[in-house]
């Protein structure tokens, strides 16, 4: 069955050929003579979706030794987005885990032809990311630094070199480009076919023309899949339904929320060009012009991501529609203009076709992967944001590992479907958000950009009050949080245009807020935190938490414990503060993006005991953080209770009255290392307490502050933050939190074994704080996160977060460094000498800045105050 797809119009014929070829294959491997294989009544894994993603999952599961896999496709293999997608595999992706996935896919597709004998159209053309302006060039340089960390070759080149690599490109308006020599183009239906063939060779049963109608669930676990040809009992179900994944999720007996939404996507095919193009001309990505171009059958294929996308399928599935999508030339005009500007020689090229190929997009531009929170055994890989081909290989591998080992071989939290919940499931929200996401793919992303659509969904009761006082907002998990407060009389308009890689114009505003936190008192609305209450009639709650948490929770009532919830590898699944409210009830405060993941983590390990009760109380409380030395004075005046440390020690929680309102949970911690209190206020009292605090606080110089100030404070105090600095592959030992692990207690807990082993072996990577030394805050590019760290000239790690410290008047980066492997290739333990004696440098957009590495925050080094380690309030709940 050797064939080549010669034009789009023959795709259909091609897939028919594919179908018969798979049939033939099945016939030979299955040993049956019948035309259609018998419909299985039972399987271990059922995969829905015969596109490139579904076949990749099947392929990788089979490779990992799974048997009894059935793949269902409602039409024919690769009939959806895969049939039409442009076939570019590029590693130029926004986050490192995506680069890794694309890089893996490249290698996979390269060797697939050899493995299966199926031609995949693989051509190692390389690709060129063009920069029309200096900001774009900066972002490409940042990308290049990140790719070098992953060992992927890439070069930032001058525009003249671009002309040599691609004869058609007009370079007159370019300032440079990034050349990725390893990137490739393939024929997506052929790759799809090859994966299907390979999977079938490993025993995967592929059934076309079979529609999944419903997924049946029993006791929260997948039990069977109902199709139009009968039902299949199964242990695992994998939703790779692409465009239709959302509706398939809704069609489960227990609804599964898979937040994605389709948009139309257009590309142009030309007839073969008269002048012979080299088959290996690189792919051109002109992100400023919003277009991409690749060679195609002697002509060119060019599409783009327009500013005004056309969302589609909001109201539901219609498989017929995807076959007959309308071309829309008028809509394509800006992209055509841009293409002709980039390649003026194409004026005379003849048009073959304008293809409309719907793609699915997610609320944050990243794909959806992993086990769904509500239904165990229900896995998802979908929402590829038009990089399905680039991600299918790596994504399929990670998902197969996930199903096999319980977690992939690398941290995939940015892609984990549990970062979303039902919250993001509204069709209106998705429709509006994907209209922002699609153009964003090619937009320039500067540090701390925020989504503009789908906002003001969850707000604190104080939102309006804060907004009128000049709050500027950012969003986390749908919750609006203040970034900073613009003082009266400042020009609001220009502040909103503060998108830059350099010093932003809110610099002095945040500086003033930080100063106020240090010298007087600030109030920060931190209501977005995830808050759970765990209660039991007897000691079950304590038992569960002792099992889940690394730190000892058998503390007197009223104490607050910072603890990680670790997995078996000793890595952080969650990092939280737990308050013992009473003997058998606990208040658990987790990061804002944790409501779904943490909930499902606890639920997963919670015995089904009617006496044990877990409740999400996030919505019941407004949280105000009073930071600063005068916070105790403000609270003392409002409660007539002494708030001095001798009466209200650090890390303590009391229910008390504030103003007229009673029952306020006051906690002596601020998540920043500064003195102060968190107030957990039942929402109906929120406005009252806020007003009282502000009016009493007046004489102490109180003011509002936002999360940018908080971040500066926590980073200069070396506080790690889960989801940013900490992930499921970080252990407490690696970030200097051994003191928060109950090693001394003879008590088992999740991850103990791994930690004991690691303590014995020594850690080979360590969380450090890097203070940039020769970095000019005014003139140099600011660090963000993901910058490579070099130690004695050798790559040693990457940063995970950074902030300007107004106290040190320097930039501070947090990140992990590791030692070079020993002569035997095994990791070697890291020593304080390695940290203290090394010459460190941080690479910001290709420029290296020397840095001083620290294991302890400056406050504890330089302030004369001697605080006991246990009293050090080290928390990590605030966002980047």
């Amino acid at each position, binding site marked *: 069955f050797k064939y080549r797809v010669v034009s789009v119009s023959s795709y259909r014929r091609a897939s028919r050929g594919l179908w018969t070829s798979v049939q033939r294959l099945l016939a030979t491997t299955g040993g049956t003579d019948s035309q259609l294989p018998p419909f299985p009544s039972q399987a271990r894994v059922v995969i829905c979706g015969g596109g490139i993603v579904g076949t990749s999952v099947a392929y990788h599961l089979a490779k990992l030794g799974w048997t009894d896999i059935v793949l269902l496709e409602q039409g024919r293999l690769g009939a959806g987005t895969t049939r039409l997608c442009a076939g570019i595999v590029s590693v130029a992706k926004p986050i490192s885990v995506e680069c890794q996935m694309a890089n893996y896919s490249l290698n996979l597709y390269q060797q697939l032809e050899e493995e299966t004998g199926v031609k995949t159209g693989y051509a190692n053309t390389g690709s060129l990311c063009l920069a029309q302006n200096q900001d774009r060039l900066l972002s490409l340089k940042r990308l290049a630094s990140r790719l070098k960390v992953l060992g992927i070759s890439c070069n930032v080149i001058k525009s003249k070199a671009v002309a040599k690599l691609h004869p058609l490109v007009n370079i007159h308006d370019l300032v440079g480009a990034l050349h990725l020599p390893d990137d490739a183009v393939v024929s997506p239906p052929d790759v799809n076919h090859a994966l299907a063939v390979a999977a079938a060779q490993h025993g995967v049963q592929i059934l076309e023309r079979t529609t999944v109608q419903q997924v049946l669930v029993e006791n929260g676990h997948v039990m069977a899949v109902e199709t139009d040809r009968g039902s299949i009992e199964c242990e695992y179900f994998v939703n790779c339904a692409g465009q239709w994944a959302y509706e398939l999720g809704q069609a489960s007996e227990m609804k599964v929320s898979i937040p994605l939404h389709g948009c139309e996507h257009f590309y142009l095919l030309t007839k073969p060009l008269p002048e012979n193009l080299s088959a290996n001309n690189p792919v051109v990505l002109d992100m400023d012009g919003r277009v991409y171009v690749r060679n195609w059958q002697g002509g060119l294929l060019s599409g783009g991501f327009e500013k005004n996308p056309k969302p589609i399928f909001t109201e539901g599935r219609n498989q017929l529609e995807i076959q007959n999508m309308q071309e829309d*030339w*008028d809509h394509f*005009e800006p992209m055509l*203009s841009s293409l*002709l500007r980039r390649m003026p020689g194409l*004026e005379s090229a003849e*048009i073959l076709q*304008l293809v409309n190929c719907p793609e699915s997009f997610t609320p944050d531009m990243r794909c959806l992967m992993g086990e769904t929170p509500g239904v165990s055994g229900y896995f998802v890989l979908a929402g590829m944001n038009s990089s399905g081909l680039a991600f299918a290989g790596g994504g399929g591998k990670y998902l197969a590992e996930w199903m096999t080992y319980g977690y992939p071989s690398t941290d995939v939290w940015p892609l984990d479907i549990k970062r979303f919940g039902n919250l993001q499931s509204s069709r209106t929200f998705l429709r509006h958000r994907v209209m922002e996401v699609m153009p964003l793919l090619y937009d320039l992303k500067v540090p701390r950009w925020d989504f503009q659509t789908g906002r003001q969904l969850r707000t604190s009761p104080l939102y309006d009050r804060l907004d009128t006082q000049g709050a500027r907002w950012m969003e986390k998990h749908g919750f609006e949080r203040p970034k900073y407060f613009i003082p009266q009389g400042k020009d609001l308009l220009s502040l909103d245009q503060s998108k830059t890689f350099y010093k932003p114009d809110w610099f002095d505003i945040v500086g003033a807020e930080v100063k106020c936190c240090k010298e007087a008192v600030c109030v920060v609305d931190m209501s977005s935190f995830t808050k759970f209450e765990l209660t039991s009639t007897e000691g079950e709650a304590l038992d569960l938490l002792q099992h889940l948490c690394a730190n000892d929770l058998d503390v007197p009532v009223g104490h607050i414990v910072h603890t990680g919830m670790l997995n078996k590898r000793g890595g952080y699944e969650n990092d939280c503060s737990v308050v013992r409210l009473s003997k058998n009830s606990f208040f658990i405060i987790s990061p804002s993006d944790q409501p779904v993941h943490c909930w499902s983590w606890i639920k997963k390990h919670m015995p089904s005991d009617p006496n044990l009760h877990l409740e999400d109380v996030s919505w019941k409380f407004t949280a105000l953080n009073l930071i600063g030395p005068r916070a105790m004075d403000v609270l003392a005046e409002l409660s007539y209770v002494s708030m001095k440390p001798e009466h209200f020690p650090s890390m303590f929680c009391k229910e008390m009255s504030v103003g007229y309102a009673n029952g306020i949970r006051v906690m002596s911690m601020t998540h920043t290392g500064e003195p102060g209190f968190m107030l957990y206020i039942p929402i109906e009292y929120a406005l009252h307490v806020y007003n009282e605090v502000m009016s009493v606080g007046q004489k102490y110089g109180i003011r509002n502050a936002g999360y940018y100030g908080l971040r500066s404070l926590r980073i200069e105090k070396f506080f790690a933050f889960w989801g940013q600095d900490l992930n499921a592959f970080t252990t407490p030992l690696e970030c200097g939190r051994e003191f928060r692990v109950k090693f001394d207690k003879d008590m088992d807990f999740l991850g103990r074994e791994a930690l004991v082993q690691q303590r014995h072996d020594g850690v080979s990577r360590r969380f450090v704080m890097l203070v940039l030394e020769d970095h000019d805050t005014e003139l140099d590019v600011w660090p963000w996160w993901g910058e490579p760290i070099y130690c004695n000239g050798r790559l040693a790690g990457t940063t995970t977060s950074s902030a300007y410290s107004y106290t040190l008047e320097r930039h501070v980066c947090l990140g992990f460094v590791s030692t070079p492997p020993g002569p035997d290739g095994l990791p070697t333990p890291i020593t304080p000498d390695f940290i203290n004696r090394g010459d460190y440098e941080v690479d910001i957009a290709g420029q290296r800045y020397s840095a001083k590495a620290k294991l302890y925050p400056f406050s504890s080094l330089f302030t004369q105050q001697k605080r006991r380690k246990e009293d050090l309030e080290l928390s990590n709940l605030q966002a980047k």
Partner: protein
Amino acid sequence: MYGRVYATILQKASGTLTLNVAASSQHLLLAFPSHPQSHLSSWVKSKSIPGICSDEKSENCSKSWRHCSTRQDLDFQLSRVQINNILRSSEQTVSVPEFDGKALSVVRKFESNQLAANTPNEDRRSAASCLQSKGMLFGVFDGHGGWACAQAVSERLLYYIAVAMMSKHGLEELEKCMEHDRPVPPILQWYKHHTDFIYRDSASLYIDHLRVFWQELLVNEEHDEGMSPQEALHCAFKRLDADISLEAQVPLSNDLMRSTAIQVAFAGCTACVAHVGMDGIHVANAGDCRAVLGVLNDDGSWSALPLSQDHNSENQAEVERIRAQHPPSERHSVITDDRLLGILMPLRAFGDMRFKWSSELQQSVLDALESGVDLDSLELYQYTPPNYLTPPYLDVTPDIRYHKLRPQDRFLILGTDGLWDELGNEEAVRLVGEHLSGVHLQAPVSPSEKQLRLGQMHKLLLKRRARASPTLDSNSATHLIRHALGTSDYRELSHERLASMLALPEDLARMYRDDITATVVYLNSDLVKRSPS
């Protein structure tokens, strides 16, 4: 002229979204002393700042600008919502029932809008159904030297026209009712915008004079079936101007009435009135307002057919007409600097008794006034036109054109010169035509067009795009005004440019744009088809 210069400055400034008033006012202060004649002409009809007529006044103005310049940078940016609010505040849309129980209506609906540059607006508009003739009357009026004359004419002119068209029988009926204090049968059904204003104090005077007019018609032997629209328009224009002149000369008992009459007579206004009836459109024009017919061609394109000619110095025939009325010695002084006696831009107008009465009459009227009325409070400007030798120099005789309706005639645009300064006839017709047909729903690119090469396709798409800029306004008059102000050098609608134009402070707006009034009358082309020719 200066308006153009400043508009260029503004265009540059609008790129940065804020305009530094201090900077632009310096240009003004430098510019003014060197061109003293522009002061004089400014109030009458110019692109310059209204309200400057003497050196003393300009001193005041420069003071106010200095005051202005001490302020911080003005934020000239407006949100889309604000822009829409400003643009739409004077919108008027009226759908005319096709059949009112007696006859079919030629007019399907009309849409109208105004945007002021002067404070207050000196443009006026009128629309009414003529209950006797079954036709509809639409007028736009561009006042100068204040809004008083435009106001009076907009209130009164349609009555004069309607009365002139009434049959003797109808007029007798009217007269009988008036005599016996019975309710008078309505003559016109007005379509007024809620912001429209009327001279309540002078209403009784206006009715009295209208009554005198019809009484004279009644005694006229020839007035049996009423005048044709053509005659009626001509007669009404002349008669109303005569009444305005008369009212300013006779002593009126009521002070308020008297000051109003003086204001009306000494201010002026141009007028363009269309009578749309079953038999066709009659347009009467005096001055530089304009009526343009939108014609849909067989190939789907739009073309413009002007139904009036502007009476200004660009109209050579009009210039010659005026020169012929005066001795050859005045040949050069009659029109100087493209203006009548160097002052007035339109060459026909209502009011403007400064250009119609003899100097002696003007003086005696003003002298008679000075005893009782404070002239300053009337905002009258004390000046005498130079070379005022053989009055009258100005009259109101309208140019009247008749156009028989054809099926391809789809709409009529009436606009004051503020609109036509910014938009050409063809451009305006294209905008309304495409607004009417909703070309954003244009057919997709046809298969034959797909045989094009990329470059050709690109040109085609750009052309389609230029045609299909999405309409933001349901009201086509608003659509016209938005494009008149917001069209950038690249012929595309620029939000920034529009925002800057609308955010201009009151004292600057008149430099960059004139008052704009536009009325679009949609014709019932089906009716024309059906009616026997």
